[in-house]
């Protein structure tokens, strides 16, 4: 059962470390000195993980309760007194973890309400149906009467508890002068109930309790599925803006230190940013030198060396050295907040898009109302029999039950979402699939999306094993991406240095057997750098080994791009990285159009220009700088490795490395769209047959129940075809994924000029 630890240990790096103060700020006071915090632990996945995490956390001093929720991949911890070293303990166990906003973690009362309503409606409708069967098969008048009374009794909770969901929604629509799908539903079920009670009093032969309750039951299934799909989207968004640190250490003029929440930081304050921290607000460096990982901010693939006087943006990750920074903006004027504002302003394509079901219901309600009303008028004019006319009008309302709209669309989307999930793609919203089926252009970000966004050592066979071991041992002590690449390639041996120091902005210096080793940029490590650029390992100023790095392409990037092109989609790159780097990637993937050095606003501008030209764009991106464009695009997708904010802005998130997720999601969405259209077609055909029968007054409770159940079963069965029809294809593609990576990785490692010309600093 040690399936998880080995792989996960690698992921648990002390980067993005959360300080105790931050933990305290994020925790919730339960009173009585008890505090609770929720941690997201994405890597846990088995019983062994649960045991290790719960034991590990519970064993810490002060912890009174530690409980893992495997479904949500979260651990909830309660403690008293001092903040226990939760994150460090988890990292020690091999799990990366991060803070989860407790205030938003509450369970979803709306869903519980829906499920309860569904249970009650299911109970009522099934029991009524049971009684109805004997009525239909010709129970004598006395028994029929008794069964009608029991049915009436059973229908009450279904109507007034479960049906309330529809009544409320219909009422709020009517209050605003609109009409929605729930208006004819509400009128239909309450009138059907009313007239059935009247008929039961009058000893009538027909009662529609079964039709009314099973209508509520079927529609509630659809409503619950729909809610599940939407709630995912809402939950994802609620964790937003957590990329920003919660607080920062402020250095006062008298030398004292304070940990203040980020909102209380004023321009002019002096802040300490330790290695591994994100920059809390925009600022300039007062003293210190380090490298910054700007990839989420600018899309730049290599760490940027900074020194006193450099300008920092909020959200950049400080890698190697501590910095003293003067704040130049408040949190709400900083880069992160600016991104959030841009995102809000960019809510273009998505906000304008109206869901298919909503559009259909716009047409549906007036038509149904008018038909039922005309039927009523017609029958009164023809027969003058009020009771009969009203019964027939109700039958029209009931028989045209919008099952195709209320049930078929969500069920297709749930099945499609399930299929995507099996292939490692998460969908946040049902409407996202509808939008994805419409696209004609795919725009990619480069760093982290088309590429892995991680440096990888290339051309490393020439390096002597002894040198490699020394380099790896030195690199293991550093958080620098290039160091990590070296350590990851050669593994950490058992070399023990007499002295080991990291010099921010330059590299690592170590002493072994009286000799000085330096791993870092050539002009620092070598006494005579000459032609050497980039990263080297030196001994006493003499070259031992040079290192070359590349940002390798994501697995299957080429296949994914060509699959999209075959599907008739245009591809382009929108990147914040330098032109040469973008051009190299574009050329390699055969993407003709690219924009380099694009600021977040430029990306939004490009996508909006495309939208203005009538194009519908899928944006695939991962960085913080992509967040606004992910929001602006018609539909968007992000890898799971993306910055939180980008992941939250995207409609789809793919969990696996392979970029094939993009054509797959597009394919499944197209198919789901086709099935939804088919279901609409089925519904129309059904209504064409059923409506004349209803208007003619031939509908008995038996026919109503049969017709409704049949139409519901038909659309559900059609939706399930999405899964069955693609079982084989799925198996094939997952097999392909299994054999791919090694082969693809070898092929995709090309030396792009990204890394080589750049001065590397370790």
């Amino acid at each position, binding site marked *: *059962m040690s399936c998880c630890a080995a792989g996960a240990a690698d992921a648990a790096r002390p980067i993005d470390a959360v300080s105790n103060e931050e933990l305290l700020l994020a925790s919730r006071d339960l009173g009585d000195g008890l505090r609770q915090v929720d941690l997201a632990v994405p890597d846990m996945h*088995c*019983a062994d993980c*649960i*045991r290790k995490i*719960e*034991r590990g*956390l*519970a064993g810490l001093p002060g*912890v*009174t*309760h*530690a*409980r*893992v*929720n*495997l*479904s*949500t991949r979260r651990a909830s911890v309660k403690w008293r007194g001092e903040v226990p070293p939760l994150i460090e303990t988890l990292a020690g166990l091999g799990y990366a973890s991060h803070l989860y906003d407790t205030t938003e973690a509450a*369970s979803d009362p709306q869903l*519980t309400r829906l*499920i*309860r309503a569904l*249970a*009650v409606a299911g*109970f009522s409708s*099934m*029991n009524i149906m*049971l*009684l109805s069967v004997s009525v239909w098969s010709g129970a004598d008048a*006395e*028994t029929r009467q*008794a*069964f009608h009374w*029991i049915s009436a009794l*059973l229908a009450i909770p279904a109507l007034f508890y479960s049906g309330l969901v529809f009544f409320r929604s219909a009422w709020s629509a009517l209050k605003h002068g609109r009409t929605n799908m729930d208006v004819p539903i509400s009128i239909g079920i309450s009138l059907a109930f009313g007239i059935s009670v009247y008929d039961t009093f009058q000893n009538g032969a027909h009662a529609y309790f079964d039709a009314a309750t099973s209508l509520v039951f079927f529609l509630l299934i659809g409503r619950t599925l729909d809610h599940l799909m939407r709630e995912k989207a809402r939950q994802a968004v609620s964790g937003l803006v957590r990329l920003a640190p919660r607080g920062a250490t402020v250095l006062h003029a008298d030398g004292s230190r304070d940990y203040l929440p980020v909102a209380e930081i004023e321009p002019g304050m002096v802040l300490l940013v330790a290695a591994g921290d994100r920059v809390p607000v925009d600022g300039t460096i007062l003293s210190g030198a380090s490298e910054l990982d700007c990839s989420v901010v600018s899309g730049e693939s290599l760490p940027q060396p900074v020194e006193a006087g450099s300008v920092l943006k909020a959200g950049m990750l400080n890698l190697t050295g501590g910095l003293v920074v003067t704040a130049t903006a408040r949190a709400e004027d900083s880069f992160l907040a600016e991104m959030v504002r841009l995102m809000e302003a960019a809510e273009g394509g998505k906000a304008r898009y109206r869901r298919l079901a909503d559009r259909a219901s716009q047409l549906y309600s007036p038509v149904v109302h008018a038909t039922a009303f005309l039927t009523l008028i017609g029958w009164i004019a023809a027969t003058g029999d009020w009771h009969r006319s009203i019964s027939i009008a109700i039958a029209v309302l009931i028989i045209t039950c919008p099952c195709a709209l209320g049930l078929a669309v969500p069920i297709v989307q749930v099945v499609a979402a399930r299929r995507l999930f099996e292939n490692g793609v998460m969908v946040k919203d049902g409407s996202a699939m509808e939008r994805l089926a419409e696209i004609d252009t795919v725009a990619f970000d480069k760093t982290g999306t088309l590429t892995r966004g991680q440096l990888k050592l290339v051309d490393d066979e020439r390096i002597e094993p002894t040198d490699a071991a020394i380099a790896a041992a030195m690199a293991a002590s550093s958080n620098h991406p290039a160091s990590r690449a070296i350590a990851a390639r050669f593994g950490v041996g058992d070399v023990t240095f007499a002295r080991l120091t990291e010099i921010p902005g330059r590299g690592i210096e170590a002493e072994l057997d009286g000799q000085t080793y330096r791993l870092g940029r050539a002009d620092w490590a070598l006494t005579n750098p000459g032609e050497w650029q980039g990263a080297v390992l030196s001994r006493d100023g003499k070259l031992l080994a040079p290192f070359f790095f590349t940002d390798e392409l994501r697995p299957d990037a080429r296949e994914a791009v060509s699959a999209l092109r075959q599907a008739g989609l245009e591809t382009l790159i929108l990147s914040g990285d330098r032109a040469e780097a973008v051009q190299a990637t574009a050329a390699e993937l055969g993407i003709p159009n690219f924009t380099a050095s694009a600021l977040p606003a430029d990306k939004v501008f490009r996508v909006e220009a495309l939208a203005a030209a009538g194009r519908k764009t899928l944006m695939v991106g991962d960085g913080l700088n992509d967040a606004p464009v992910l929001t602006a695009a018609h539909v968007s997708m992000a890898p799971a490795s993306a910055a939180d904010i980008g992941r939250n802005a995207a409609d789809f998130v793919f969990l696996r490395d392979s970029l094939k997720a993009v054509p797959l999601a597009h394919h499944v969405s197209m198919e789901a769209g086709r099935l939804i259209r088919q279901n609409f077609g089925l519904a129309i055909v059904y209504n064409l047959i059923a409506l004349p029968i209803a208007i003619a007054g031939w509908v008995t409770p038996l026919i109503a129940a049969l017709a409704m159940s049949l139409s519901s079963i038909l659309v559900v069965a059609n939706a399930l075809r999405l899964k069955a029809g693609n079982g084989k294809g799925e198996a094939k593609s997952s097999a392909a994924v299994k054999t791919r990576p090694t082969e693809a990785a070898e092929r995709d490692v090309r030396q792009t000029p990204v890394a080589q010309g750049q001065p590397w600093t370790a």
Partner: protein
Amino acid sequence: MDSLIFLVPLALLIGVVALVIFLWSLRSGQYEDLDGAAERILLDEDEDRGPGA
């Protein structure tokens, strides 16, 4: 007819009991962590209780 007088209420009673059990299980959070419940069965009893329980 005579048999119906107690059979139908009995059937309904069983239905109501099932409904109440379902609502109770929903309320007591048994659907909160379905994946976890499936995995926890592999853990030994004392470990499963968790800390402080």
